[in-house]
């Protein structure tokens, strides 16, 4: 599935963020097209989370701006959903109460039909009254995805959502995100440490440099969805993986090997 670009959905212009003396990101500009999945990869501490939180309006930028459909984001936006590192469920609420949390905050009547559909979709039907500590890591993260999707955001920002999961659960979760995307076509910005995950999910992979983070590479990922194991084992994926690795490590030897 190629990027269906008819103007950008989310666009970042000259974004910079300082925390005191620390320049977390510098001059980041990027566009996220309609109904696409864009992954951002980069070394630890390169400002990926800072960038994502800026996109969500959770904190402001020191320089530059973030626009959603041409409008500058100044605070949390109802069209933008956020999935956090680890599941970030509230441990004193059961699964259903956690999913209803955003509705409670917004004082809206929850769309139960949609929520139940989502729960069914991610395989959490029947676990509504379980407390978070009774659920596995994968189940917790699925619940947090349902929580974010329940409000039907048109943009979903995911901050290393599966970083704490084991490899098998992670692949399962990647398939789930793909399925959800095929159903809802939500625009997704996905932050990850895993190049494999980025390639599997995305229409585009952006590489961020070491701190201060800036975009140093932008690769289209043209493979047909749903992406099979065979696609993921192909020569093209292997080469792309190595190019991204070379960008991250800055090792020309790897690049040479890939070419």
């Amino acid at each position: 599935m190629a990027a269906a670009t008819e103007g950008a959905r989310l666009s970042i212009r000259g974004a910079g963020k300082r925390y005191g003396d620390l320049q977390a990101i510098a001059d980041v500009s990027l566009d996220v097209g309609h109904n696409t999945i864009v992954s951002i990869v980069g070394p630890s501490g390169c400002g990926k989370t800072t960038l994502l939180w800026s996109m969500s309006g959770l904190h402001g930028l020191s320089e530059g701006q973030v626009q959603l459909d041409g409008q500058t984001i100044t605070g949390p936006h109802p069209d933008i959903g956020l999935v956090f590192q680890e599941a970030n469920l509230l441990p004193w609420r059961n699964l259903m109460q956690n999913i209803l949390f955003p509705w409670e905050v917004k004082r809206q009547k929850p769309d139960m039909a949609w929520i139940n559909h989502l729960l069914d979709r991610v395989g959490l039907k029947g676990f509504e009254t379980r407390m978070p500590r009774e659920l596995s890591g994968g189940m917790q993260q699925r619940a947090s995805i349902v929580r974010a999707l329940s409000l039907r955001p048109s943009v979903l920002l995911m901050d290393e959502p599966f970083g704490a999961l084991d490899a098998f659960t992670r692949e399962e979760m990647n398939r789930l995100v793909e399925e959800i995307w095929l159903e809802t076509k939500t625009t997704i910005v996905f932050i990850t440490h895993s190049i494999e995950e980025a390639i599997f999910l995305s229409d585009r992979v952006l590489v961020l440099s070491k701190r201060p983070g800036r975009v140093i590479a932008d690769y289209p990922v043209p493979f047909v969805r749903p992406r099979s194991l065979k696609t993921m084992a192909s020569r093209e994926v292997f080469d792309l993986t190595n190019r991204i690795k070379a960008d991250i490590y800055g090792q020309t030897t790897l690049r040479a090997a890939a070419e």
Partner: protein
Amino acid sequence: MTDAIPEFRKSQSGAGVGLAGVSLAAGTGARTRKEIAIIILVAVIVIGGLEVLLRWFEVPHYILPPPSAIMAALVKEFPLLLPHLRDTLICLFAGFGIGASIGLVLAAVVTQKPFVEKVITPYILILVTTPMLALVPLLILRFGFGYSPRIIAVALAAGPMVMINAATGFRRTDSAKIALARSYGASVLQIFWKIRAPMAMPMILVGLMIGAIFGLLTCVGAEMVGGGFGLGNRLTTYSSMINMPEFFAVIMILSIMGILLYVLFFLIGKKWASWEA
């Protein structure tokens, strides 16, 4: 000393919270008939054994009366003790209510601004570590022998305890959960009630429990120091008359009050803080 500070934790069976340091096995509930039988058997052996030993060695009543004499005194004196019990309970609950409310509000407000907290904490620590009992004669001088000096002393003993524990609870709120609420546009007040308060709840309950028990100690102590009423006053009266069975009957009422306070907060903790692993 740190061991003595109770702390909520999940019990082994995962059924609820128990208190570390204060090992009240009955708190988690006996499950089988056999367990109940053993608990009763141990109680009979301890109390019966005490009775037999005290009589066997002919320990004088003014040193330690046998359990049967204490029970008899409790039954006989209870109607006379009832107004005193009521008096003590009024002081305890009024003082604890005032102290705990002020402590909770202060903790919630102060933890919002780390600098304010730094400025205030030393004074709270002084209040926590000073035995409020020492102030009772002074309070009586100023407020007379009525309820007020005792209520003030209880409030001063319980309030800082509640505050210091609640403040610990409010401080540990994690930023990801606040970010979660903010990402849905939650107001400061919503963040407080839906994130900070539930997050702090286990520590708040620990504070309330310690505060209540400190309040009880201070209340009885204040009654012993001054005032013509209350269970503490009965203690001094009975001991001065060497009415030891009656004296120990009052002690028994006080221990039962303490245990009931503990159980009350234990049950509240089970309901509101059992999520904490």
